[in-house]
């Protein structure tokens, strides 16, 4: 239905109810500034737009995994009353290609369909019902092609090619690294363990599916509002794909209703841009259904990982040989970057003198593998941390002591040859777990398992890099303004997709400028208003933008104080201080209200900006330039240690997660409340990855395209989580902070797998650990036991 009435303007998103007249401080828990509007439903996400004269756009999906496109039949849909346009690749005048590293994804298919979710036509209609009918009436003629649906078959000689023009065939990127020699090292190892791990394709399953709206303005500017993590990069991608000058495009990124990497790049943006170009100036909205999000959206890469780990009899690691195969689907949605980060983390946070790591991001006709919180590290951590437990068992050594023995410390070289010059708190994390009653009293707890129950405890050690690595500039630009009304505006260039960095920005600005929360306004990412600042990803948001923001706020503060000193006719601005709403001359008590001060300052004087670029590793480990371009290596890492207690039901194979402990070194904490939310949310998500989440695909077709069959944890599946920070000051971080966004999600799968192995005496190498897999393993063990 067309909404002819403009909705009433909602109040600003910040609300006195929540923050009150508080001057923020660093290190205290403050309610999130976005919380009140979000829980009361007043916050408007990209999906919430219902504007005047708005029309709907939707996509005809291919529904076939691999085929040559012969023609698109638009006539029947075009004839339907209420249909405004049916667009195909012929309506695109740009490159019609999207992507970050390798631009290989069409906005609308022109030559070939490469997965079921490919967009074949774009339909514009007056209302949603007409849109649905028109999409059904649109059809395409295909010449089906044999597809590749596993990394094994994709790598076979003569395998069908997903991209005929790619010099690497079906290998999007092969990354490798050798240090020392694993060949001769094997002779020097007292113990070797070997295994192959398989982890599933996983959906982000954010509350807000891919959504946005766009409008071609009278001045020719194309405005796109989208649920995205990457507004500045999107602008360039959309411009290139549609053949527009980037400055013609304005990208606006409201709070996103979850993203987790699934909005790290273009989803609806180019389609919306194209739609707006054919909508006669009317606003066009697109909002993928849940099923469409499952079929067309990106996923966490499914992975198959071969590991061989060797150690001395005393437990010191000596060599590690890995081969990683990641199913990247048909397009380079950062798949090369994902395999590179996976490679970098594949040996975990340990000192290993001899390593040989190889990784392949492989094109297939499955759904698109892409960015997902953890970014390749979730997969390799699942493998490496289970290897550590297998090694401990073979050495008859305590798994925690084995990790402590090999844990990296500041000044060590990690296993990819980078000297750790930043804070390195893994040992402190492990020691905190070692002291915790959930660990020390585990034997007694295990012995009290009821009938048909087995109990186990598992631990893992974690590390996660922050930022983009050495080549792609890891930059943020902050801007703060003293407004003519005497308030503070913070121009945030990095998206808040739910992680709470907007609230943290406000806390930083309020703290430095000594202003109440209600005197500060946040301007969310907007390519016309905020400054280019990289993506909301890579555990970098507050680290990078926060550093820039501190600089900008300090500059503005000094300028305000100096200007006030001039007006007060005092020599030294050190005698003045910012107080809420004013500057006070401390020796005399005289004050100038900020709104008064602002009238004496021109706009450029009232604005301060600051750029920050994250530090990079200065060493050059033995890898090719291509791998460096994909982000290898990093210099800054967060660390953690997790402990989980599980109960396994012997009759059903159901794994019940009873307790969870997370100890993390993410530097100093600006807002403990937001920090805790990041840890808890990441663990809940990780529990889903461990036990239930798996996008099932058959010949490229998604079989679990809804939340009734793709099983994410509900409240009762998530246990009490205890989270302890190890607050080690990181000198390069804002107030000593490091990234916390991803690290905790890497822990639950290996921790739970280790706990299940501890409980049952069997290890399951394929995740998720479904009741069926667990029960089968248990019963195989029991029948083996019978033979002995």
């Amino acid at each position, binding site marked *: 239905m067309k909404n002819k009435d403009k909705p009433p303007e909602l109040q600003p998103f910040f609300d006195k109810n929540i923050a009150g007249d508080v001057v923020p401080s660093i290190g205290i828990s403050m309610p999130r500034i976005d919380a009140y509007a979000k829980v009361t439903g007043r916050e408007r996400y990209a999906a919430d737009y219902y504007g005047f004269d708005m029309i709907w756009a939707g996509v005809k999906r291919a529904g076939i995994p691999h085929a040559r496109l012969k023609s698109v039949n638009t006539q029947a849909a075009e004839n339907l009353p209420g249909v405004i346009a049916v667009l195909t690749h012929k309506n695109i005048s740009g490159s019609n290609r999207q992507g970050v590293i390798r631009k290989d994804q069409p906005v609308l298919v022109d030559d070939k369909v490469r997965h079921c979710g490919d967009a074949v036509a774009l339909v514009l209609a007056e209302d949603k019902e007409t849109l649905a009918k028109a999409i059904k009436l649109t059809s395409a003629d295909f010449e089906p092609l044999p597809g590749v649906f596993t990394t094994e078959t994709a790598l076979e000689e003569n395998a069908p090619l997903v991209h005929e023009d790619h010099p690497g065939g079906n290998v999007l990127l092969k990354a490798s690294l050798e240090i020392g020699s694993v060949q001769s090292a094997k002779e020097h190892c007292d113990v070797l363990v070997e295994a192959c791990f398989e982890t599933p394709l996983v959906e982000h399953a954010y509350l807000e599916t891919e959504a946005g709206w766009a409008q071609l303005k009278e001045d020719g500017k194309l405005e796109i509002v989208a649920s995205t993590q990457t507004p500045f990069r999107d602008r360039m991608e959309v411009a290139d794909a549609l053949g527009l000058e980037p400055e013609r495009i304005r990208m606006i990124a409201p709070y996103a209703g979850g993203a987790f990497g699934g909005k790290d790049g273009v989803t609806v943006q180019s389609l919306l841009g194209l739609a707006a170009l054919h909508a006669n100036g009317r606003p066009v909205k697109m909002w993928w259904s849940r099923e469409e999000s499952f079929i067309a959206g990106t996923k966490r890469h499914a992975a198959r990982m071969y590991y061989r780990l060797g150690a001395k009899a005393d437990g010191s690691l000596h060599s590690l040989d890995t081969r990683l195969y990641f199913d990247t689907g048909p397009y380079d949605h950062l798949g090369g970057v994902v395999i590179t980060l996976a490679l970098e983390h594949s040996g975990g946070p340990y000192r290993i003198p001899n390593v040989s790591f190889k990784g392949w991001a492989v094109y297939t006709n499955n759904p698109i593998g892409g960015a997902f919180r953890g970014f390749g590290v979730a997969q390799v951590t699942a493998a490496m941390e289970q290897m550590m437990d297998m090694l401990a068992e073979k050495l008859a050594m305590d798994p925690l002591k084995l990790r402590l023995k090999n844990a990296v410390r500041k000044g060590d070289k990690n296993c990819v040859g980078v000297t750790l010059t930043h804070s390195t708190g893994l040992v402190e994390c492990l020691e905190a777990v070692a002291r915790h009653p959930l660990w020390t009293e585990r034997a007694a707890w295990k012995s009290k398992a009821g009938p048909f129950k087995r109990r186990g405890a598992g631990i893992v050690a974690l590390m996660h890099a922050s930022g983009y690595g050495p080549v792609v500039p890891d930059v943020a630009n902050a801007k703060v303004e003293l407004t003519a009304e005497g308030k503070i505006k913070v121009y945030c260039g990095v998206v808040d997709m739910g992680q709470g960095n907007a609230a943290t920005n406000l806390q930083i600005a309020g703290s430095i400028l000594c202003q109440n929360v209600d005197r500060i306004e946040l301007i969310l990412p907007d390519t016309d208003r905020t400054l280019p600042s990289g993506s909301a990803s890579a555990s970098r948001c507050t680290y990078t933008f926060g550093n820039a923001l501190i600089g900008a706020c300090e500059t503005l503060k000094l300028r305000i104080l100096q200007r006030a000193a001039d007006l007060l006719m005092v020599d030294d601005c050190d005698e003045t201080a910012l107080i809420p709403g004013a500057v006070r001359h401390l020796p005399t008590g005289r004050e100038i209200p900020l709104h008064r001060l602002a009238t004496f300052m021109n706009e450029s004087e009232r604005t301060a900006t600051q750029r920050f670029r994250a530090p990079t590793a200065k060493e050059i480990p033995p890898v090719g330039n291509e791998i460096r371009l994909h982000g290898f290596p990093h210099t800054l890492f967060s660390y953690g240690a997790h402990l989980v207690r599980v109960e396994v039901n012997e009759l*059903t194979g159901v794994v019940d997660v009873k307790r969870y402990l997370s100890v993390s070194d993410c530097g100093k904490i600006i807002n403990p409340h937001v920090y805790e939310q990041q840890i808890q949310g990441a663990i809940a998500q990780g529990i889903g990855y461990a036990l*239930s989440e798996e996008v099932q695909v058959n010949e490229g077709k998604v079989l679990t395209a809804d939340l009734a069959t793709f099983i994410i944890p509900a409240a009762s599946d998530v246990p009490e989580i205890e989270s302890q920070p190890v607050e080690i000051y990181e000198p390069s971080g804002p107030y000593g902070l490091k990234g916390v966004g991803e690290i905790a999600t890497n822990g639950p799968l290996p921790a739970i797998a280790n706990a299940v192995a501890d409980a049952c005496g069997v290890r399951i190498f394929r995740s998720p650990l479904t009741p069926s897999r667990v*029960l089968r393993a248990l019963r195989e063990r029991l029948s083996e036991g019978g033979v002995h």
Partner: protein
Amino acid sequence: MRDVSLPRSLEELWGLLDRESAAALYAGGTDLLVKLRAGLEDPPALICLERVGELKGVQDELDEVWIGAATTLSTLMEDPIIQRRFQVLRKGLEVLGSPPVRHMGTIGGNIVTASPAGDTLPALYVLGAQLEIRSKDGSRVVAIRDFIVGPGQVLLNRGEILAGIRLRKVQSYAIHHYEKVGRRKSQACAIASMAALLTVSDSGVVEAARLAWGSVGPTVVICREAEAAIEGKPLSMESLKLAIPLVEKAVSPIDDIRADAAYRRTVAGLLLLRLSEYSAGTCSAQ
């Protein structure tokens, strides 16, 4: 666009059914609305039964308890008679969906949807539920096991509705058991489930057993052989184990997106062993 009618009485309902005999009937809509959204059904009109007073409530009637088909699952869960007499049903209700689903969904809906995974069904089978079917012209009574003939298939003629469920009050079973295996603890479709009623003598011998399994066949599976195998024997692991092969033979599970058939078959048998906990006193019988 389609009409949605909300009759307040059976009288009103019969009139509506006369005019729109192809209308889809529903109460809470927790099953039907999902199917409509997915385009799996496209009825010309909808008639909602949730406001028909005669179809709601729990009535204590001498030898029987009558449950209105449009009684919500959450109402039923809190009902003192259900709590006192039919714990097996209450246990099924407790793990059905989630609080919002239980507030909307009704027991009649759970029966007529006839999913092999319906969480009230194994309980209603072991309780020997009789269903009251009504139409403009009268009523008939049918046992639930005769009413449900396949997944989503029930013997309901056009113009008929499921009006109520009758449960015999004299049920001497002291042990009421229901266990559901799902892919998560709430909002999960059963991948296997078992309801059991047992009478155990003072000396620990099973005098009577009623067993039913969900999600391991096209309808709820009952297995008289397994019941007979444990009757007359002590409630012990040994005797329960002997019944497992009988159960594995009786069930006919399928592979689907939630679990494989082999797993379902194995679990159906193993769930029997849980009953041994009652003899050990570790599984509360409430």
